[in-house]
């Protein structure tokens, strides 16, 4: 048996694991309702809310652990009611118990997700390095790739760079090219590729359909942020929207080159519709609901602190009777 501060930390990790599971479950259930739309918020609010959603299993897990352990032990000055929240043995931890097993399973799962993600990151980084080696600088902001595939994108983690292919470049006017360049420059300025990568890693803990939805919303928000940045230099919204549509038509590829998920094909269309609508509309959506967000996080932390103890007792009762 482990005792003292190490046991306290292990108990906390155990509560984080249980709470994360509850939060993931609650978010999964809530996203099944069609009226949950991140799109009704402004781009900045949406980005913040999406990051909070992705981080919520960790934040709420840590808070729930704090609430449960501070009520049952003598570590913290703030003691909440030990009737509602308690953790009987904050300073004792038996590794060969279901708590130990839950920590082991959680760590193995998180490591599995993280290592898989890092391996893909390294592989993609290598491909990007090859692209970098084959690119030619067009000017200080963008590189040219000599290929027949029309595309413009920003890639790279620590030093994001923007690329445009010759096939696309040759079909754009000077104004259209500057719009594309400004858009990509904004992605590079905001380090969007590395943020996208981190967001994917965080949302990998959610079920696939939920993580896809969160990632789609984040992608749309990032694209809308980059579209909005163009307005500082090209105030004509219709020209920006028309360029977006023109490039969208140019990059459309034959069916055999596409990924086979119809969900994603639809997303592409939805994404461009949202972007053009956002550009042309005056209503830029609601700002972040600070109080509601705080209350949701607080109530979920309390719920998780209560549930963690309930689950703890339920499992112990079940195990002690079989």
């Amino acid at each position, binding site marked *: 048996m482990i005792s003292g501060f190490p046991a306290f930390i292990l108990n906390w990790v155990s509560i984080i694991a249980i709470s994360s599971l509850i939060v993931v479950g609650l978010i999964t259930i809530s996203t099944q309702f069609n009226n949950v739309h991140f799109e009704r918020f402004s781009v900045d609010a949406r980005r913040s809310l999406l990051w909070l959603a992705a981080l919520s299993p960790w934040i709420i897990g840590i808070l729930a652990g704090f609430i449960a352990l501070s009520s049952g032990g003598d570590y913290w000055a703030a003691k909440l009611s030990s009737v509602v929240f308690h953790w009987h043995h904050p300073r004792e931890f038996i590794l060969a118990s279901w708590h130990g097993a839950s920590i082991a399973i959680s760590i193995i799962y998180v490591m599995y997700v993280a290592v898989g993600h890092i391996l*893909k*990151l390294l*592989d*993609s980084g*290598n*491909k*990007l390095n*090859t*692209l970098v080696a*084959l690119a030619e600088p067009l000017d200080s902001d963008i590189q040219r*790739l*000599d*290929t*027949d*595939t029309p*595309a*413009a*994108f*920003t*890639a790279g983690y620590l030093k*994001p760079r923007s690329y445009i*292919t010759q096939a696309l470049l040759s079909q754009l006017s000077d104004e259209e090219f500057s719009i*594309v360049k400004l858009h*990509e420059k904004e*992605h590079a300025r905001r380090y969007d*590729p590395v943020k*996208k*990568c981190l967001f*994917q890693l965080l949302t990998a803990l959610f079920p696939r359909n939920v993580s896809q939805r969160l*990632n789609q919303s984040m*992608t749309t928000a*990032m*694209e809308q942020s*980059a579209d909005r940045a163009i307005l500082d230099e090209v105030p004509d919204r*219709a020209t920006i*929207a*028309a360029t*977006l*549509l023109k*490039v*969208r*038509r140019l*990059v*459309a590829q034959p069916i055999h*080159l*596409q*990924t*086979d*998920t119809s969900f*994603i*094909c639809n*997303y*592409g*269309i939805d*994404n*461009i*519709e949202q972007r*053009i*609508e956002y550009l*042309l509309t005056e209503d830029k959506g609601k700002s972040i609901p600070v109080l509601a967000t705080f209350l949701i996080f607080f109530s979920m932390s309390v719920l998780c602190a209560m549930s963690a103890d309930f689950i703890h007792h339920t499992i112990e009762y079940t195990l002690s009777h079989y």
Partner: protein
Amino acid sequence: MRLGELEKLVLNYLWSVDKADAKQVHAYFEEQRGGTLNTIQSTLDRLFKKGLLVRTKESHAFQYSSAASRKAFIGQLIRDVTRDFTGDDEDSLLAAFVSLSTELDESQLDKLDRSIQEYRKQSNRTKKS
């Protein structure tokens, strides 16, 4: 696919010539960066095994040429990278100007086109009034 620095250089060279054997490739790089014939041979062999080069035996030596043109290779790299990260997310790693691999639905795009035209008309009317 992992490509080393020399592999990229050799591939670039073979895109610029029709075909070459190991000695010709070595002669070209010996002037530029030195290195042994053995290194060039193993580099060519690795590129062949990765499917980036094709080779035919002529007399006692292999003649190497690129399996795909430079343009086709870069195009494939872009497609690989765009769907790389989660296997099915079309532009997960990139922040692309528009989605790179989604199906074109002309009717939906036409509808968007009409919205833009309508917005232009309204903006012009507002300016005039």
